[in-house]
């Protein structure tokens, strides 16, 4: 008899409710409806709320998700989540980690570390279960009831695009109704009904290999790191991954052997002996209980466009990235972050609709990059042909003695993506010899936040909110009058743009004092340098000596692309 246990988490249940209706139609029309209350849907709603745009979020279930889904949240995602106001919950609940180990048969063949240094505020990765991810984002959404209207147990049944909006039909236990939106963001996952309604099909590769995913409850002092076992003695011929999660939950993914019946393989009585032999091999002796089992099959698929008129697709609704490399939820959170500010500015008539085409082009390019890494990881985890199998064995066996081949085993964990080809990027200034280029995310660095007499230890990312930021580098906080006037003029028009001084000396103005002397070289900056950041923290343009007409043109070109 297999011992079982529930998750150490109880989801709150939410009732369905109907809005004010007239003849089965909601009386109020909405600027934005988000379909799907997963991590991507919540991040989209919170991102729009940051700009004051009200959102209706439709969720078919009555609570956050159940089971083992996304478990790793990257530093880049945490930076986004910080801007959404939900970081404390992630850091309080999540288990931070920096690297992992890979084993081949009996031997350790790789110990990898993800990029990390003294400049970073946040760990490279934290582990937490998707139900916690969703709960923390939901808690944050509930703090803004006037902006985020969550409709639980409300299932989309039909979507009809219209010239200037979208009509949605939904069903609830209390009855069906129709609602109208100017814009719809589809965050309804891999089996997206929105995608299907539009007649769109994901394109790419589906892999044959299947994995069993198991969550167990076990008390162990083992540190949080990613463990990968190739052809382990406990499960010869298979690949096994192990991740520690909060609350003594351990997530185990193992590859099914060829010819194994997947339906039988996920039965607890078949899973338990495999888990036991793995734990025996790892030297884990504590008793354990099974919480959940599921089946996974890797897909590397995407749409070729994420904007279809008034409908925007994000996350798994737009692309399916293999889980190896943890780019699924993380790429979806990046989608939400890219889309939220653009859609908000379009809704508020501060930008042209064409800005939304850059959401599609930037994130499709990102998906291709994620897919290429995800594909490589998948092909290493589950070799798709004799050749991949033979070469993998060569790499693993040589890695024992030859460090020069170990990079082939590295799991290629997710990292921030640079929008190299973005239509929004201003032409780069050749005078820079270092620093983030247009399209790249801002570089993190510790600074001292100055304001009047106040001095506070901080990080640059703490001082940059959900708005455009003119980062001006100077010795003591002097800013050219025309830059100041420009920032004030934008603010008077309601455009979210703020000035942040980065200074070599402490000053009384609102500034990030580069007390370590690292920020200037990190940005390739000199006194007079201007870096214009987008609300998602990517560099829009940079000028080694602030060039106001050029910076103003870059902002206008971004808001109103041709």
């Amino acid at each position, binding site marked *: 008899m297999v011992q079982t246990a529930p998750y150490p988490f109880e989801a709150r249940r939410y009732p369905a409710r109907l809005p004010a209706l007239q003849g089965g139609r909601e009386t109020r029309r909405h600027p934005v409806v988000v379909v799907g209350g997963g991590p991507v849907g919540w991040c989209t709603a919170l991102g729009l709320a940051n700009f004051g745009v009200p959102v209706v979020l439709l969720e078919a279930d009555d609570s956050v998700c159940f089971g083992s889904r996304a478990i790793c949240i990257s530093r880049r995602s945490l930076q986004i989540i910080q801007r959404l106001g939900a970081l404390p919950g992630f850091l309080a609940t999540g288990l931070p980690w920096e690297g992992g180990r890979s084993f081949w048969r009996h031997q350790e063949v790789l110990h990898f570390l993800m990029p990390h240094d003294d400049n970073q505020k946040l760990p490279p990765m934290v582990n937490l279960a998707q139900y916690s991810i969703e709960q923390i984002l939901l808690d944050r959404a509930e703090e803004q009831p006037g902006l985020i209207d969550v409709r639980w147990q409300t299932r989309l049944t039909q979507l009809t695009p219209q010239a200037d909006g979208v009509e949605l039909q939904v069903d609830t236990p209390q009855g069906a109704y129709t609602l109208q939106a100017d814009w719809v963001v589809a965050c309804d996952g891999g089996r997206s009904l929105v995608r299907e309604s539009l007649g769109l099909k994901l394109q790419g590769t589906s892999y044959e290999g299947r994995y069993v995913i198991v969550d167990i409850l076990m008390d162990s002092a083992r540190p949080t790191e990613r463990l990968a076992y190739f052809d382990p003695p406990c499960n010869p011929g298979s690949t096994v991954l192990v991740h520690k999660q909060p609350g003594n939950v351990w997530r185990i993914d193992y590859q099914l052997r060829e010819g194994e019946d997947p339906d039988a393989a996920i039965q607890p009585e078949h899973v338990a002996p495999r888990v036991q032999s793995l734990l025996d091999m790892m030297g884990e002796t504590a008793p354990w209980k099974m919480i959940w089992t599921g089946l996974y099959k890797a897909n590397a698929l995407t749409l070729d466009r994420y904007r279809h008129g008034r409908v925007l697709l994000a996350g798994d609704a737009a692309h399916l990235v293999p889980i190896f490399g943890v780019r699924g939820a993380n790429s979806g959170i990046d989608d939400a972050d890219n889309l939220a500010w653009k859609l908000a500015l379009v809704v508020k008539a501060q930008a042209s609709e064409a800005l939304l085409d850059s959401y599609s082009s930037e994130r499709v390019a990102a998906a291709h990059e994620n897919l290429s890494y995800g594909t490589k990881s998948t092909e290493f985890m589950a070799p798709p042909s004799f*050749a*991949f199998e*033979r070469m993998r064995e060569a*790499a693993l066996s040589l890695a024992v*003695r030859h460090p020069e081949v170990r*990079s082939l085993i590295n799991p290629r964990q997710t990292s921030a993506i640079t929008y190299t080809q973005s239509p929004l990027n201003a032409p780069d200034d050749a005078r820079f010899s270092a620093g983030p280029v247009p399209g790249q995310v801002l570089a993190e660095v510790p600074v001292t936040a100055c304001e009047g007499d106040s001095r506070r230890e901080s990080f640059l990312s703490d001082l940059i909110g959900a708005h455009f930021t003119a980062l001006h580098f100077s010795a003591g906080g002097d800013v050219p009058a025309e830059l100041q006037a420009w920032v004030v003029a934008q603010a008077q028009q309601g455009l979210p743009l703020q000035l942040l001084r980065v200074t070599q000396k402490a000053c009384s103005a609102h500034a990030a004092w580069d007390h370590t002397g690292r920020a200037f070289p990190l940005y390739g900056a000199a006194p007079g340098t201007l870096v214009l950041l987008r609300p998602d923290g990517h560099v829009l343009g940079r000028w080694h000596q602030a060039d106001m007409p050029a910076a103003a043109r870059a902002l206008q070109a971004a808001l109103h692309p041709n």
Partner: protein
Amino acid sequence: MRTLSDADLDAAYTHLCHTLTRLGPAQSEAVLARLALLALSRSASAADALRLVDDAAQDLTPG
């Protein structure tokens, strides 16, 4: 030490996997033997070439 970047080695590895897959198992030994010979011929020295062969054979038992 190698001069290829991690990404370059990765791309070469994947290209080799796809090439072997395309030509099929029956030809894989021929491709790998030819590849080995080309790689040996680019060795920096005689000692280097011999060491490559020995490194490739190390830990494998006669079968």
